[in-house]
């Protein structure tokens, strides 16, 4: 850190952050917990921040997330904007920084554990802010009817309060999207359709046995095309955003299963959506 924050008390500058060596982990246990990620109970609370337009609090295992939506409110751009400007900020607790690749906490110079622990972090678990932000931006700008709010800005904040070592980044990503989706629904801001996001493990049994089963994240809504037939209706899904992590598997396999895994993801996404929408509906 080259700049000192003189506005706040951040403690002595020569303080050494705490560094904890990793406990020898039992890899078997980790794997079983990964597979059960989608089966864990999700705790949702809406409107927990009364001053925000919409907000949601999510807990899944050790993962605690808070999403809040502010706006639409005046945007002080010089130029005329016929539609709302979207601003998304992702904050994670600085004390979790050991999983961070790029430090966004320039206001906190104490807690940089990066040097100590970054080296041995599995890329599957690394939190990549740029991925979070770009997928959120894509999803939200496709979802919100921005042209209903001229000259405004809509601010979305995601606070990662806690997470743990057994949650993969992609799973966290889907949680983040779910939190934002729900906060948007809660806010009453005009959106195209009810969104839901899911991480789907590749369904093909061959790859699931290997430790790095390919996973895909999608955030999607139902399109304006409907079909009575459930199977056919799966085609009428509009993807807001998706993310496929760099896989260690050979590529040919992935390509062939991509369509399948997306179909599978859509199916799961629909199931989640019906639950979430029921939840929201009951909240009315």
């Amino acid at each position, binding site marked *: 850190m080259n700049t000192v924050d003189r506005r706040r008390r951040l403690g*002595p500058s020569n303080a050494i952050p705490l560094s904890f060596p990793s406990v020898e982990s039992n890899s078997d246990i980790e794997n079983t917990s990964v597979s059960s990620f989608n089966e864990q109970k999700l705790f949702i609370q809406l409107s927990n921040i009364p001053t*925000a337009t919409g907000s949601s609090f999510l807990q899944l295992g050790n993962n605690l997330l808070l999403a809040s939506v502010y706006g639409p409110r005046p945007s002080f751009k010089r130029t005329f904007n016929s539609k709302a400007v979207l601003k998304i900020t992702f904050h994670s607790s600085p004390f979790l920084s050991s999983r961070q690749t790029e430090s966004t906490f320039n206001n906190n110079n104490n807690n940089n554990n990066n040097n100590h622990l970054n080296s041995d972090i599995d890329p599957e678990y690394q939190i990549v802010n740029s991925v979070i932000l770009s997928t959120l931006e894509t999803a939200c700008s496709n979802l919100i009817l921005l042209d209903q709010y001229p000259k405004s800005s809509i601010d979305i904040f995601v606070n990662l309060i806690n997470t743990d070592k057994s949650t993969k980044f992609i799973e966290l990503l889907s949680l983040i999207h779910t939190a934002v989706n729900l906060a948007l629904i809660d806010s009453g801001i005009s959106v195209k359709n009810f969104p839901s996001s899911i991480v789907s493990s590749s369904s093909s049994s061959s790859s699931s046995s290997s430790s790095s089963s390919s996973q895909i994240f999608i955030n999607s809504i139902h399109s304006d095309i409907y079909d009575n037939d459930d199977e056919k209706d799966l085609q009428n899904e509009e993807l807001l955003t998706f993310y496929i992590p760099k896989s260690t598997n050979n590529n040919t396999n992935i390509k062939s299963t991509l369509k399948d895994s997306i179909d599978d993801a859509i199916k799961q996404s629909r199931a989640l959506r019906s639950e979430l929408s029921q939840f929201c509906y009951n909240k009315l």
Partner: protein
Amino acid sequence: MSQNIENVQLKGVIFSPSELALVAPDITLTKYIKAGYRPSLRRFNEFKPMIISTAGISRYDISLLNDGKKINELTTVIGSSSIKCGGTSTICTISAGLVEDNFEAVNDYRMRLDADIIVNNDDKNEENEEIDNILGGNLINKNGCVYPVIEIAKGTTGPPGDEEIGLGEKLYETILHSGLINREELKVDVGLKSIDENGNEIILRGDDVGVIKKKFSFVIYARIQVFGKTGPLFDQCYASLVKALSDTKLPEVYLNERESNLRTKSGKRNANINIQSYDLVCDSVKYRKLKLRKDRICWSSTFGIVDLSSLNKEDNEGDIDIITETEEDIEQSILLTDLEGEAENNLSKRISVLSNGEGFFTSITIEKGNGSRITTDIIKQALELSQVRAKDMIPKF
């Protein structure tokens, strides 16, 4: 907007309550107070219920995931709390760093300023010697402190705001001067990790470790996130900080042998470089609880004072006689607890009291504000109320 045309009296535009609250919050407040209530529908001296709990997100909290591990390895949070009060929720997380003694105080110019401040006290019945020590001795050497960073979610990004900075400063001062944490409590008993003849890891302490001459202390950081602010936040922030501190567990620390060898190799000529090259590692499982001084645990109550001026200029829904009523021309001050909402937040006259519920106060702040003077009655009332409240709330920590 409706009109009233049956008389010749003057009338303003009639606003709906929510409109009036927006246009003229002070008038709304006066109206409520005249009716004996506050906009939040609480009574004047009614406190807001506050739910205090540990947030359970620290490293040592048993994992909800049941993944076979007893600790959450990802986080360096060593204490946490969560407080909900009305629509406002506060999450406080505590982490720590290590700093060499004798170094901290010298390096931080702000510390030197603080050391000159004399602690005021007017009570010598209890803990006489301790208080004398504070008076005579160096405050920094006696009392531990916490470095709080406050983040109030306002839906904006950018540098910390005045309120956040002010709150952080006030919390820091309060913890330091109240002596909540004994400085000794933060001292680190550094061990030396080594491998014995049989290849087992052992940790040497005290006299066994000749290498460690430097003394280390924990530096405690707090991060307080506030969501849904509706009024002054100090009470809540203080409560969450104290709660989190009482939940805090300090890890055991040892020096890596490899690093200590390296240190001796580089020799004494490069002492400055050596300081940075200490590789202090915390034990990932073992810890000790941070002990707070029980008698210094306080509850903070902030009061606002509203003047009810005699002129009943506000007392109308639009109609008013030109001849104003002359009765009750006395200024009246009313003490309000737990301010909430825009109008109450705008009150400039404040009294802030930290009481331990047993007749002791660690801090009393009176803000003069605008308007009539603050009477002794009001101050007395505030002190009494804060005592009652403290007695009520401190057991919940």
